[in-house]
């Protein structure tokens, strides 16, 4: 075992994994965390905690992750390269590991332009692939980014990375994933998938390259709450691919049924994901709709979660 997390046990034992996501509040209110944690507890193998998602200031990922540990939920903390340089990242990771956090998702981070502090300086000392390589060296070589040896206890994380199969250039995306895996990614969570045929083509190429044998690929899925949300993702979220037929289906039901249909649609996409060679789990992103996760996973046949 690399980190000994529940997520790692689920993946290495061959179960189809299911992870969730929790967005921290734009406040210092711990009640929000407790409420959302209550909605997710027991339904997923681990829960991602976003790190200033979409470049908006929120409660820090590591502090929320620590709260989740106390509530009996395994966190996967997210770490972006946008807000911290290599000193700050390493310092935070030493602390996170000391606090008992075992899963880490390494990201470049959404650009400041999209957030609520667009005049701030973006750090970008490292990119996400360099971050993955740094975390692997901390864990496996007990070395800091400068080569200095960690004399005693090294931080041990199951190292995650993200990939967007729908971004351009499409032909390069599998190779970019391979690069992340070569740098040290143990698992990968993808961008939200609505264009299933295109994702299948991406996965075919990933499998042809043999990348799926070297890391666990979790397909990103999420329920659509409203037609407005679908249109927004289709038109305004960078790197999102929401085909018309996804929206047409939601438009085909009465307005009060859209949420229910969104949940059903998400569960069906999960069923499709389970059939795709190389996909080892799903990462369910129900943004500000954590209540939907148990129902989605139930419909998808992924409950109860394995107790390992």
């Amino acid at each position: 075992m690399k980190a000994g997390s529940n997520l790692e046990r689920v993946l290495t034992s061959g179960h189809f994994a299911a992870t969730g996501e929790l967005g921290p509040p734009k406040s210092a209110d711990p009640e929000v965390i407790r409420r959302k944690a209550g909605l997710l507890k027991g339904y997923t193998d681990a829960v991602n905690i976003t790190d200033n998602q979409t470049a908006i200031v929120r409660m820090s990922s590591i502090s929320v992750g620590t709260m989740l540990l106390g509530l009996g939920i395994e966190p996967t903390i997210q770490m972006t390269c946008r807000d911290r340089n290599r000193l700050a990242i390493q310092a935070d990771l030493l602390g996170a590991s000391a606090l008992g956090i075992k899963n880490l998702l390494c990201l470049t981070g959404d650009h400041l332009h999209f957030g609520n502090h667009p005049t701030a300086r973006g750090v970008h000392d490292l990119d996400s692939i360099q971050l993955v390589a740094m975390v692997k060296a901390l864990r496996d070589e007990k070395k800091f980014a400068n080569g200095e040896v960690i004399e005693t206890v090294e931080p041990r994380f199951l190292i995650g990375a993200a990939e967007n199969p729908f971004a351009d250039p499409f032909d390069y995306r599998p190779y970019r994933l391979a690069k992340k895996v070569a740098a040290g990614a143990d698992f990968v969570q993808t961008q939200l998938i609505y264009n299933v045929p295109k994702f299948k083509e991406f996965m075919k190429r990933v499998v042809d390259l043999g990348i799926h044998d070297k890391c666990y690929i979790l397909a990103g899925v999420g329920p659509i709450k409203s037609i407005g949300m679908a249109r927004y993702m289709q038109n305004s979220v960078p790197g999102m691919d929401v085909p018309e037929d996804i929206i047409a289906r939601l438009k085909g039901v009465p307005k009060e049924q859209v949420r229910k249909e969104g949940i059903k649609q998400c569960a069906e996409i999960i069923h499709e994901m389970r059939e795709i060679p190389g996909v080892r789990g799903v990462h369910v992103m129900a943004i500000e709709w954590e209540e939907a996760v148990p129902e989605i996973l139930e419909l998808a046949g992924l409950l109860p979660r394995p107790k390992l």
Partner: protein
Amino acid sequence: MIKAKQKPIAEIKTLIAPYKKILILGCGTCVTISFAGGEKEVGMLASSLRIASAMEGQDKTFAEATVQRQCEWEFIDAVADQINKADAVISLACGIGVQALAERYPDKVILPGVNTTFLGMAIEHGVLVERCRACGDCVLGLTAGVCPIARCAKNLLNGPCGGSHDGKCEVNPETDCAWQLIYDRLGRLGQLQQMDVLMPSKDWSKDYDGGPRKIVREDLKL
């Protein structure tokens, strides 16, 4: 070349508010080419400020001069008389020119009239784009001659982020994605395998993080 953009007139008026005799000093090199601070812009700014001053009942005077390069002592020494006669100088040169004047004329108020914006070129008449960040450790040999430091909003060194769409950058759909350009050119050059090479973290100490940079060429010293 260094590209600059004239400051808003309101900001310039605020900067010069305490002063009466003002010299507007242009620069005949980079800022002339970028239409921000050459002889022509000096004339236009002087006219605008004279009109504004008259309308507001002030008795400010505006002298005009342009030197070939404000970043060289010999050129700024040549206008010493005009500078010494002024209460304040608005320099329409880049930040280098402003600081050269401030260093050479320690008792004189020197004010910037432009915002120095980037190192770049005109890709067409009137369209100036950034091309170099002067990071001090050039990677263009590894990136098919397209700079990911100057041209990628996230300074990525290992390929495009998830926001690259139809060859454009997520931050500004009018900006080309640097990594799409790199990918396309590497493909054309038969060097796509370069995309698989892990570029290690960059040595930013050669950039401004190492403090103000200096090059000393002993072989050229007099």
